[in-house]
């Protein structure tokens, strides 16, 4: 056996041992003491890294939770309410389960309801169209329909309806992370309470124009007439800048405003069909048919 091999083995082993000793001291010197609870909390978070909590990813949120003295203002919209209570338990805080929320598209300006008045020919994204002008319809507040919100959604909870040209939110998948709210340059999407049995009532319009121009631009626009405010028994509706807004914390889902609205701007979701309305439509149909006969 050649002596070269032995020298090689010895010198390499010596190098290895020296490096190990140096590394040991360096590791001691630059040791980072991290709260083990951060890992524990991170485990309990969904790991989607969506940023819906306002922190850079789940690790960032876990770090913030551990460091915070009071975690009542912190909320992970993606986890269910119980997860936050569990985390609070681990950290020794008290927590109340926050009401689950969901994104709601507040525009019903479909191609039929809201006629286009010019052709937009630029890049097909909402943010660019918003930077250029008011849009290709008479309504300068409504949806552009290029789907910036759908692109922003990391949970596959949205799609563009090709018939209406409006985004649709899939209730089961939406976790209310708020990415679409941030992506929308027109502030159309709002996070609202999910409501009992997923039942929701909201004003599906953001047009702040006066009644005449609003109605001219879109047949289902809120015209700020105030009928809903008068009919609401719970003072849940306010009108500001010719636009009604329903406070979801006060709303008791009685649906009186939905019937009252003259332009059908107030929408109800996931309610069972109601009888009187059906009768009414039938009556209208009958009336029409008799008129036709005459």
């Amino acid at each position: 056996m050649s002596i070269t091999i032995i020298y090689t083995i010895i010198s390499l082993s010596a190098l290895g041992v020296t490096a190990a000793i140096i590394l040991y001291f360096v590791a001691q010197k630059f040791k980072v003491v991290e709260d083990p609870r951060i890992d524990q909390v991170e485990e309990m978070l969904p790991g989607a890294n969506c940023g819906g909590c306002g922190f850079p990813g789940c690790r960032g949120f876990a770090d913030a939770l551990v460091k915070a003295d009071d975690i009542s203002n912190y909320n992970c919209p993606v986890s269910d309410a119980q997860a936050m209570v569990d985390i609070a338990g681990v950290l020794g805080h008290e927590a109340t389960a926050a009401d689950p929320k969901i994104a709601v598209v507040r525009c019903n300006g479909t191609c039929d309801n809201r006629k286009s008045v010019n052709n937009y020919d630029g890049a097909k994204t909402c943010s660019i169209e918003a930077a250029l002008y008011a849009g290709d319809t008479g309504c300068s507040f409504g949806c552009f329909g290029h789907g910036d919100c759908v692109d922003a959604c990391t949970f596959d909870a949205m799609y563009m309806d090709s018939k209406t040209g409006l985004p649709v939110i899939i209730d089961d998948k939406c976790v209310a992370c708020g990415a679409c709210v941030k992506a929308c340059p027109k502030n159309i999407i709002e996070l609202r309470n999910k409501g009992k049995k997923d039942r929701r009532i909201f004003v599906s319009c953001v047009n702040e124009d006066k009644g005449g121009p609003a109605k001219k631009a879109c047949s289902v626009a809120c015209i700020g007439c105030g009928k809903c405010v008068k009919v609401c028994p719970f003072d849940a509706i306010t009108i500001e800048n010719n636009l009604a807004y329903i406070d979801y914390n006060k709303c008791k889902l009685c649906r009186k405003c939905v019937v009252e609205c003259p332009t059908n701007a107030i929408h109800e979701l996931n309610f069972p069909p109601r009888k009187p309305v059906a009768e009414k439509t039938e009556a209208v149909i009958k009336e029409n048919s008799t008129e036709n006969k005459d």
Partner: protein
Amino acid sequence: MLKTFKKGGVHPAENKLSANAPIVTAEIPKTATIPLGQHIGAPASPIVKKGDQVKVGQVIAQSSGFVSANIHSSVSGTVAKIDDIIDATGFKKPCIIITVEGDEWLEEINRSSDIDKNLNHKSADIINKVKEAGIVGLGGATFPSHIKLSVPPGKTAEVLLINGVECEPYLTADHRLMLEKGEEMIIGTKLLMIALGVSKGAIGIENNKPDAIKHLQEIVKNYEGIEVVPLKVKYPQGGEKQLIKAVINREVPSGTLPIEVGAVVHNVGTAFAVYEAVQKNKPLLERVVTVTGKSVSNPSNFMVRIGTPTTQLIEAAGGLPQDTGKVVSGGPMMGKALSNLGVPITKGSSGVLLFKKDEASRRLIQPCIRCAKCVTVCPMGLEPYLLMNQTEMQNWEEVENNRTMDCIECGSCMYTCPADRPLLDYIRLGKSTVGNIIRSRKQ
């Protein structure tokens, strides 16, 4: 060899259809709609109310901040209302609407067309007159001119450049103004030189206007210190920084104003407006507007009162052709499409351009083929393809580091792109977002 700027540039088809059409005074409109925000900066605040009688030249809205300008009535009559009117972008903007009755001018305005050659003015007086007259940059940027004339402390102006380049295709408003009001314009230039305290002035004109160059060269013989500089035809030579590079071969550093290299640039239209304001006491209430397009039966240049509806001008130029696909305010490269034709002519409208349907629409967007043509033509030395990609990915830090704020939005990159990519659309978005980020950082 003719002078020009070095970096980039394109040469679109010139199409100066209205170059031989003399300036015609447009009819006074029946109602004038005068927007309160016709300039960069804070909109003016109205000082008249509904029912007030106004005369031509009367101040109807006052400058409301450091960067702002007065607005004068361009017609005489009664103020019908002060209301929000849908502007060219589709949004509502406050306007003063005046029902026109006769044409009664304020007495102090001298309406004779005699040329007043008196140059015995003080600098401060001229700047004050310019401010009072509500003069803004008439090349299109509409920056209040009096601010440009007040040189900030620590800086010195060495040379005044007058921008007679008119590098935008189709437009001929400045060209006709130089031919027909050449002497007045030169006196205006002289007044601007007195205001700035400079002894050198240069008028840059592209070589596709030989008649204007010759005409002005004759006139400047009588005026000391002013030189007419013929320039090679290249877009966007009318950009402030490009013009400075072309005429005096100085480069304005990134993020600074031309005064940094001792230059101040004004448009020929502005120089003429200054002449009228100082010598004739006439505020800025009318401007030259080119109405043109391949399908327009009578491409013309009009002297238009501010507030005249665009439709009226199109009628005067032979009516709206059947196959019109797009109407643009300004030139084809930097102009903005109008979303409705009811919008009035403002201080910044240099032209009304009508495109046929087949000329109007964009072609299909295709993937970038990495040819780097956009990099070659960018007059600011930017990389448009990169700015677009980074903006698309919302990588704002990189967008800022790649100097997106230097972009002058000339559109050369998009014009030259063989894949028809919407480069400028994205760069504009990047500019506004990065601008907001920078502003919030400063606060």
